């Protein structure tokens, strides 16, 4: 029974990481319909940015977060301006183009920084665990969970309470009409893409102390994050959060009932079925695209 509680926590921890990655992806996909296969590489860039800040400037992971966000968002902005914006009318081709971007980013890191795993220290003040009976929770993981909820809330506020959010939703509803009202859809798209990339960067910064920092670290995560987005429903933040939770917990629980691999296969199969029978996801947003 103890294992079950610990697994629930592990699932929550995995879900929180998935959530931050998926949020950026969900916003990009929900707004522009772009399947961004380079998203995993944005996560990777975030991790490397954190590593660079720590090893060359002595900045800790938590302090680095805003800097990493800005840095990766800038990369995202450039990529949107230079490449992605020309492909909005060809959604299938964005899959291919962003895959190409992913290869290039990975290779750039490999050639510039090296292929070997980099070491990033977690913050000292978050080391250690909280123990409640047999339940052991790592402080750092708790921090990641809290932080992901904060990011979710922040994004929600941004979407619903700010002028930018209003414009964004207007563009999602109907690009043509929004432009008639003087909203520059192109600008909104660029900012949104950059914001999504920035969130991926933050995710990368948060996971480096836990995982190994290597050029391919994002590739595996992006498939999972994608399934989260699609399972959650287009452009629905609540859906994305719920799907991340669901997938995180189901993966964690399956992994004790069967094993990690079969658990993952079962989750993948479940999501395929979900897409088949609820193509608009768990919580479809009330938008007609």
């Amino acid at each position, binding site marked *: 029974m*103890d*294992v079950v509680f*610990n*697994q629930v*926590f*592990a699932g929550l*921890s*995995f879900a929180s990481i998935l959530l931050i990655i998926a949020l950026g992806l969900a916003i990009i996909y929900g707004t522009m319909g772009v399947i961004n296969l380079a998203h995993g590489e944005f996560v990777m860039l975030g991790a490397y940015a954190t590593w660079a800040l720590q090893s060359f400037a002595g900045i800790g992971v938590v302090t680095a977060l805003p800097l990493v966000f800005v840095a990766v968002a800038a990369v995202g902005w450039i990529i949107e301006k230079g490449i992605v914006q020309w492909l909005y009318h060809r959604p299938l081709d964005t899959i291919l183009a962003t895959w190409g971007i992913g290869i290039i980013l990975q290779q750039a890191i*490999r*050639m*510039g920084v*090296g*292929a*070997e*795993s*980099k*070491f990033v*220290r*977690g913050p000292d003040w978050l*080391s*250690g*665990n909280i123990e409640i009976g*047999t339940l*052991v929770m*790592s402080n*750092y*993981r708790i921090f990641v969970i809290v932080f992901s909820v904060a990011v979710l809330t922040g994004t929600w506020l941004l979407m619903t309470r700010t002028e930018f959010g209003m414009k964004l939703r207007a563009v999602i509803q109907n690009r043509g009409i929004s432009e008639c009202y003087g909203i520059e859809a192109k600008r909104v798209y660029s900012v949104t893409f950059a914001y999504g990339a920035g969130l991926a960067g933050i995710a990368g910064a948060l996971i480096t*102390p*836990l*995982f*190994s920092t*290597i050029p*391919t*670290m994002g590739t*595996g995560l992006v498939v999972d994050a994608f399934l989260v987005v699609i399972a959650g429903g287009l452009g629905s933040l609540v859906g994305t959060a719920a799907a991340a939770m669901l997938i995180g917990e189901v993966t*964690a629980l399956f*992994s*004790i009932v069967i*094993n*990690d*691999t079969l658990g*993952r296969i079962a989750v993948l199969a479940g999501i395929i079925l979900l897409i088949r029978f609820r193509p608009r996801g768990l919580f479809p947003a009330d938008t007609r695209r």
Partner: protein
Amino acid sequence: MKRREFLGRAGAVGTMGLAGGLSAPALLSGVGRAYAAGDDIPVGLLFSLTGAVAVVEHTLHDAALMAIEEINAAGGIHGKQLRPIIEDPASDPATYADRARRLMIRDKCVSVFGSYTSSSRQAVLPVAEQRNNLYWYPTLYEGRECSRNVMYGGALANQQQDILIPWLVENYGPRFYMIGNNYVYPKEENNYCKTLLKDLSGEVVHEEYVPMGHSDFSSVLNRIRAEEPDVIFSTLVGDSDVAFARQYHAAELNPEKMPVVSLTRSEIEVKAIGGEAAAGHFSSAPYFMGHESPENEKFVEAYKARYGADAVTHFVNEAAYFQVYQFKNAMEKLDPADVSPPNIRDAAVGMSMKAPQGEILIDENLHTHLWPKVAQWQADGQAKVILQSEERVAPKPYAAYPGQECTGKGLVKT
């Protein structure tokens, strides 16, 4: 069809590999030439310089190349220089097969040195056997193979575990938790460990395999907490091992109570893990960088001089290094007119030499007699050897399977 003959470390230079291409003096074309009938001796280097296993294989490449250049600097073999032909199989089995063909068929190499993973060796094997060439494989592996075309330089299960397991049971206890990546090496090592544990009345409290590259070990650590084993017996490789070690450390589990004992963790993984997180855990291997011997001192010094002060040597690149010397010794025994892969193989059998780990010997089954050691990792990223086998241990590729033996005539079933 210009070919890069002599690459140096182009791959590691980090900038465009263009430098490698330009530094290639186009020597003679190898097509249509008999083995080593020319002015030099073509040998293939088949280590991934790019892709997932490049981090490890590049160090093997470096060590092998260093040995080749040392030999050339000392005048070559029978006055002929070794000509390394470098191919990059990019960590992909299909590319290994393709590049191995280039080396063995097109370039007519007398031997090819290469690769780290089992799957890449398997990919090279068909062409090595079909062309009766010789593949020098420096990595520890799962055994149960008895090819006459592969020279195995790494440790086998019996060479890694025979002294290790009794010592662990005695010092830490009999309850083992087995964790490994999901492929043949971990399964075979665990099979062998289980036969040893049976005699020592140890038990396996849990055995599990995670996919290659798996990096979230929360569930595993939860189970470890619940089971409270005496020893965590790890055959995780590469990035999975790094992630596991980090998360073990972050979870504040105690290496004094539940040490992770790894068959695969070397200096190179510890460098990525960070010394602090690796400290207190154990590895079992025939070689560690900190091993004290004159040969090793020389090896480490030369390696650092060549590849930088923070470069590390480890139990696989040590083998990649000494295998080139084994090749040289065998070649020297042969009349230059008789050079052919099978003759090199036959000349190498029974030959002994002083390697950095100690004096080693090539068995007639083409595996190597080695010096098993157990070491504990220190916070500075180095291993301290705390247990060393008193005698050289013979390789038994079928140790876990009574009734089968690999001999000089191939596999014999008794």
